């Protein structure tokens, strides 16, 4: 294992110290338990937006704390859900009297820990609404599985709901909006290489030199199938077809197209993915009216990408365009 780390046990702690030093203007970092919180939290009268999850997906979630997006993020160990005490501390730190929304990605650990945290928050008299993001079409959704994983749509939901909270929309409205984003967003990813959890020291899974995993999760969970690597033209078709068919996205739809890097893929390749995606969607009469391209929900050093499409309406578009000022996303501010 070659990594720019000191000790596997200190990865999260030391990275958070770096974040605190780099972005003191926008966030402060609480330790014991670990929470990244907006520098000016709590904002009186504003719904607080809290998310969290395992570390290793940076900039998500800590990099999305700031004006117009999250009020706090709870970083767990690498690829491991944070704990209820972190989520409770975050909830208390951002409660400006209007209640708090927990944005939870659909993984068993995240669900269980956030459930315990929401119970604890309510016991302390804070109104908490939880919204689960489950947008990964690679995973079968049935009564017999834990359901679809939460992936790329999470980033979009955090941005859009953060903007709505800035407009002082109510707790119920922000939570409903988050559910609407989830209902209209679909994603699928792929990997060219595995990734290595620092504490594990070896790759999470093995992938041959000429193999790729289609439908990969953001923790290196296997996806739909393993195939021989193909030109990006074909890969985009393998990812975009199930996404478009699932919602479905149809001719005349306006979408936000999010091409995400898994951490180890250069931007030049992501732009080729975008080029192919644009061509694919144009062929179906689907208009890309907004886009986001770059590594935003990563899987350590994994090479690969994911595609997320979100069907837009005027409200979602205006909220997407609203100012945001976080270490990971910034415009209009």
């Amino acid at each position: 294992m070659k990594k720019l780390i000191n000790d596997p046990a200190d990865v999260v702690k030391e990275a958070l110290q770096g974040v605190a030093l780099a972005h003191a203007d926008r966030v402060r970092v609480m330790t014991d338990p670990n929470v990244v919180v907006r520098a000016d939290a709590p904002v009186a009268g504003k719904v607080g937006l809290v998310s969290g999850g395992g570390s290793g997906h940076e900039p998500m979630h800590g990099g999305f704390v700031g004006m117009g997006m999250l009020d706090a993020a709870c970083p767990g160990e690498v690829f491991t859900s944070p704990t209820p005490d972190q989520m409770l501390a975050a909830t208390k730190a951002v409660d400006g009297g209007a209640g708090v929304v927990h944005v939870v990605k659909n993984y068993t650990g995240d669900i269980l820990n956030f459930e315990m945290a929401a119970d604890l928050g309510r016991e302390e008299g804070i109104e908490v609404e939880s919204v689960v993001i489950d947008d990964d079409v690679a995973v079968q959704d049935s009564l017999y599985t834990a359901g679809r994983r939460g992936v790329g749509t999470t980033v979009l939901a955090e941005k859009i709901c953060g903007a709505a909270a800035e407009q002082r929309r109510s707790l119920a409205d922000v939570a409903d909006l988050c559910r609407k984003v989830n209902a209209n967003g679909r994603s699928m990813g792929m990997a060219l290489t595995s990734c290595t959890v620092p504490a594990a020291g070896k790759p999470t899974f093995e992938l041959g030199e000429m193999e790729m995993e289609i439908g990969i999760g953001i923790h290196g969970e296997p996806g739909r199938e393993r195939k021989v690597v193909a030109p990006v033209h074909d890969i985009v078709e393998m990812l975009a077809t199930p996404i478009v068919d699932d919602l479905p996205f149809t001719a005349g739809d306006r979408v936000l197209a999010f091409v995400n890097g898994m951490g180890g893929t250069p931007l030049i390749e992501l732009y080729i993915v975008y080029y192919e995606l644009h061509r694919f969607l144009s062929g179906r009469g689907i208009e890309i009216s907004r886009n986001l391209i770059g590594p935003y929900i990563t899987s350590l050093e994994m090479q690969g990408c994911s595609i997320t499409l979100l069907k837009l309406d005027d409200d979602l578009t205006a909220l997407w365009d609203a100012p945001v000022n976080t270490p990971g996303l910034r415009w209009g501010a």
Partner: protein
Amino acid sequence: MSFSHDQVYGWIRAFAAAIAENKDYLTELDSAIGDADHGINMNRGMQAVLAKLEGGGQADVGALLKTVGMTLVSTVGGASGPLYGTLFLQMGSSAAGKPHLSEEDWTDAVAAGVSGVQRRGKAELGDKTMIDALVPAVEALRSSLADGSTAGEALNRSAEAAREGMIATIPLVARKGRASYLGERSADHQDPGATSSWLLLRTAADTLAAKDS
């Protein structure tokens, strides 16, 4: 025959040692069908438990078990944190105020812990989870109590039932937790949570039953 505070503490230490010893094995099992962190997370949690208990201050068995549960909830993360945390918290509630546990108290405490895990995780028998090791262990404790077995026999039977339940997860297709994303590909792998649950019952038999014979 009953188990004292010190004996239960001894069981917790033995469980922590078994987790440390099997850390890489549990993580390896998890890398096949999960996210390769079960051994790492459980070991971090149980080491925190040992550090916490060293300070003392747990007057009775219930308080001891609750401290274990609270520490696991705040240090393990993942699904295992709330699930093992709930197991010990519910055991602690069941044993609240008791300076020692009779065989019946032990059975009640384990049963309370396991139903807490079922409520929190909503898993059924056969979903390829820790429940597959824990539920048979509770049944073994109950039937041992009913047929008048010694506490030692009861503990050994529950450990054996957990082991069989753990082995029985191998052919199963997972329906809960991260392994469920694999569908059919989750078959032919032993469930890591069932494996750590077997260690829990096995160390109970090793430490508590030894004192009984």
